[in-house]
């Protein structure tokens, strides 16, 4: 019988990116005993990849900004499928959370009068993103990490979580193994916060790190929690396309925020050709006006390159399909052209976009101060996730909380750039607070020893199959290939039905997965666990996308290319049925209070 090392906490946080760390800090501040379990080393989570900034209506650069404008922008971006309560709380609490980061040592770029500087970003009416060059995520995770290690939280690095444990309807703990030795662990607790991030590894071209395999979503789903908005996967318009081995690596929206423009092979700024009605009023008429906007002219309107990500991604896709793409199947993103307006533009670009300069120089042998980049859409972010209560972040399973990308609601059908970093701290903080409260007001839990043993035994069976079993890496590649082709940026009924058939076959292969070697730091073993989680989220994405017979936000259905008012009244909810089938249903969105409706009207 497999042995378990046993740990006991009040609150267990799974995931140590921005949301997980912020939740752990908050829970620890209430005096709760907090354990953190993470897949990687501390400080390596995907948050480090965030570049552009953190959105908060500080109004440091433009005093017309306020939570009301931020709220309206977020709802408009999400095409009104957002959990409006989360959008409200987010807009109200983000400024405080940014100031909190500064009090813990974060060093944001400054305005001339010494305040936190804010930059323009797609879909935000005013300059709103507090930033550190183009490495804001790193600044944020390091700040939370360095503050967090002094709060008494216990960090379990490089662990794989296999299953959540239940005790009479509430979550009682989690079990898994440590990578280093492959020893099984059980973490008993009174409340769990899932902050495991997104699902980007379900697709072939992705900006996401290997960790993003939907673990939290799958863990929650298996204990009966509801998932929501799974059809909404954000494809970021600008990822690297060449060389092939770096395809998908993100090129920050900050490039466009600083004046970068998109051109096709004919040299045309094609974004001017297709401006959605919802944004006509706010978009520049001329290239010259667009340039002035990026340089902080308050009377100018934004260039069409800074329209929402879903729209820009589809326009790029269209140019490539029409044969007007760049040599390696993307389009051109040019920041070097600003030399027409700025003397010493090379220095300026290097200072504003240091990581981008570095990334292209090193990986593609390209100097972005002199030449245009080649870019194309890349899987970037999951708007959907675990359905939570807007105030407390508790899922539909008592004691199980979720925050950050793993939770659904804030972003609706499409996320605005910069709203993810603020999401992490606003809702990480809330999840931590309410999880600690839940732990305090609910007694100790009992671990289901039988479930524990069967989980461990199941986790070890792939070793028995050894090399005769299915190769876990190959299953993952095949899944990524098919999801990219059949459930990607442009979707149709036919292709998604095909995808479901393929997913059904892949499930069978996952059951036959085999692993060689021993349990110590065995990447094959980790991949076998990851791919099982990816299967669940991929199925959920496909089923939800099939059910939503319209195009809205990140979901584009070629067979239903327009937005349908009726569909605007529903979220899609996914849940595991009693007999382990995936259940899918429409759930009406709760009516918005009059005062919030008024804010949206006022900002139209």
């Amino acid at each position, binding site marked *: 019988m497999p042995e378990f090392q046993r740990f006991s906490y009040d609150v267990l946080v799974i995931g140590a990116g921005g949301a997980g760390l912020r939740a752990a800090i908050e829970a620890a501040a209430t005096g709760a005993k907090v354990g953190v379990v993470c897949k990687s080393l501390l400080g*390596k989570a995907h948050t480090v990849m965030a570049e552009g900034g953190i959105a908060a209506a500080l109004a440091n650069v433009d005093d017309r900004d306020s939570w009301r404008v931020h709220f309206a922008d977020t709802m408009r971006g999400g095409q009104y499928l957002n959990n409006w309560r989360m959008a409200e709380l987010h807009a109200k609490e983000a400024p405080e959370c940014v100031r909190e980061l500064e009090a813990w040592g974060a060093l944001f770029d400054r305005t001339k009068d010494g305040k936190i500087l804010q930059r323009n970003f797609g879909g935000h009416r005013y300059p709103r993103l507090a930033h550190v060059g183009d490495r804001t995520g790193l600044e944020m995770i390091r700040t939370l990490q360095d503050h967090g290690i002094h709060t008494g939280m216990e960090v379990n690095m490089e662990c794989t979580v296999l299953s959540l444990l239940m005790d009479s309807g509430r979550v009682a703990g989690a079990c898994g193994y440590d990578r280093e030795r492959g020893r099984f662990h059980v973490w008993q607790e009174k409340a769990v916060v899932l902050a495991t991030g997104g699902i980007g590894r379900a697709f072939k071209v992705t900006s996401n790190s290997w960790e993003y395999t939907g673990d939290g979503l799958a863990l929650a789903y298996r204990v009966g929690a509801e998932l929501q908005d799974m059809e909404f996967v954000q494809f970021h318009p600008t990822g690297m396309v060449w060389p092939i081995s770096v395809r998908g690596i993100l090129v920050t929206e900050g490039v466009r925020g600083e004046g970068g423009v998109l051109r096709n092979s004919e040299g045309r700024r094609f974004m001017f050709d297709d401006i959605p009605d919802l944004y006509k009023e706010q978009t520049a008429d001329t290239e010259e006006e667009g340039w002035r906007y990026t340089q902080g002219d308050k009377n100018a309107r934004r260039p069409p390159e800074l329209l929402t990500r879903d729209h820009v991604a589809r326009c790029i896709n269209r140019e490539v399909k029409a044969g007007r793409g760049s040599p390696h199947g993307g389009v051109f993103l040019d920041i070097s052209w600003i030399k027409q307006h700025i003397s010493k533009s090379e220095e300026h670009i290097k200072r504003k976009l240091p990581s981008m300069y570095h990334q292209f120089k090193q990986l593609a042998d390209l100097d972005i101060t002199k030449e245009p980049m080649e870019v194309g859409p890349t899987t970037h972010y999951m708007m959907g996730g675990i359905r939570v209560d807007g105030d407390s972040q508790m899922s539909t399973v008592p004691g199980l909380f979720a925050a950050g990308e793993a939770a659904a609601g804030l972003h609706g059908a499409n996320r605005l750039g910069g709203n993810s970093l603020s999401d992490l701290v606003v809702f990480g903080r809330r999840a931590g607070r309410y999880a600690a409260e839940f732990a305090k007001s609910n007694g100790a839990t009992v671990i289901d020893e039988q479930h524990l043993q069967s989980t461990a035994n199941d986790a070890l069976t792939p070793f028995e199959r050894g090399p005769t079993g299915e190769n876990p890496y190959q299953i993952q590649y095949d899944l990524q290939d098919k999801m990219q082709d059949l459930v990607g940026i442009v979707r149709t009924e036919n292709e998604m039905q095909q995808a479901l058939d393929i997913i059904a076959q892949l499930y069978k292969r996952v059951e036959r997965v085999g692993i060689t070697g021993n349990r110590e730091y065995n990447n094959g073993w980790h991949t076998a666990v990851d791919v099982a989680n990816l299967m669940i989220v991929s199925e959920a994405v496909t089923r939800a996308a099939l059910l939503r017979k319209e195009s809205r936000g990140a979901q584009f259905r070629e067979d239903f290319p327009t937005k349908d008012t009726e569909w605007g009244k529903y979220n899609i909810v996914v849940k595991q049925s009693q007999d382990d089938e995936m259940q899918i249903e429409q759930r009406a969105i709760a009516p918005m209070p009059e005062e919030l409706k008024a804010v949206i009207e006022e900002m139209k």
Partner: protein
Amino acid sequence: MATQATFRIWRGDPAGGTFQDYTTPVEEGMVVLDAVHRIQAQQVTDLAVRWNCKAGKCGSCSAEINGMPKLMCMTRLSDINLEMPVILEPMHAFPPIRDLVTDVSWNFRAKKTIKQFQPRSPDFPDGTWRMQQADVERVQEFRKCIECFLCQDVCHVLREHHKHDEFIGPRLLVYAAALEMHPLDTEDRVSDLRRRHNIGYCNITTCCRQVCPESITITENAIIPLKERVVDQFFDPLKQLFHIL
């Protein structure tokens, strides 16, 4: 560019190990980590390698490539001589776990021994501060650090002399410098730097600076100014003279 290449990878655990050769197809634009992944997926599924972002931002895939400490995700095959086997080893300054993965947990424990950030009271009643960009930039250089620990790997105090219990190494000196030079910080870490963290062990050979993938000027901008602070506080001849008088 060659169409295939051989990688001589150290395979083993704390008890010991050997180099094994793996040949794999290579293409234009590939980095070392791509080749390792290909070998792992097609030939040895249990090959242990630590990686995350594959974009030079997380600092997980540190290793020694032909003897040079580097990030595997940022080392292009086109910059390496593929006529010879490419030698891949784990970092030497830390205990091996398996294959290319080392136990770097010491860095996290050592970091905790450095006194944390302590800001001055806010400048304004709304809890905010004012700082100038120039003051911030000095520290932002240090905060670019991705904690890949390659600087720790080449530091002879750690690598050759194994002084992990007495010396915190270049990464954590950079961390201490970021705190000491933070415009808002009020804590004093100078005494700790001298007595507890033994900054004096560093004799400024600049090996750390040379391997930093973020090009942080570790020695000149971080360590030397800290050494100067130690000297100012403890070895000022004028102060000593007054002390004697």
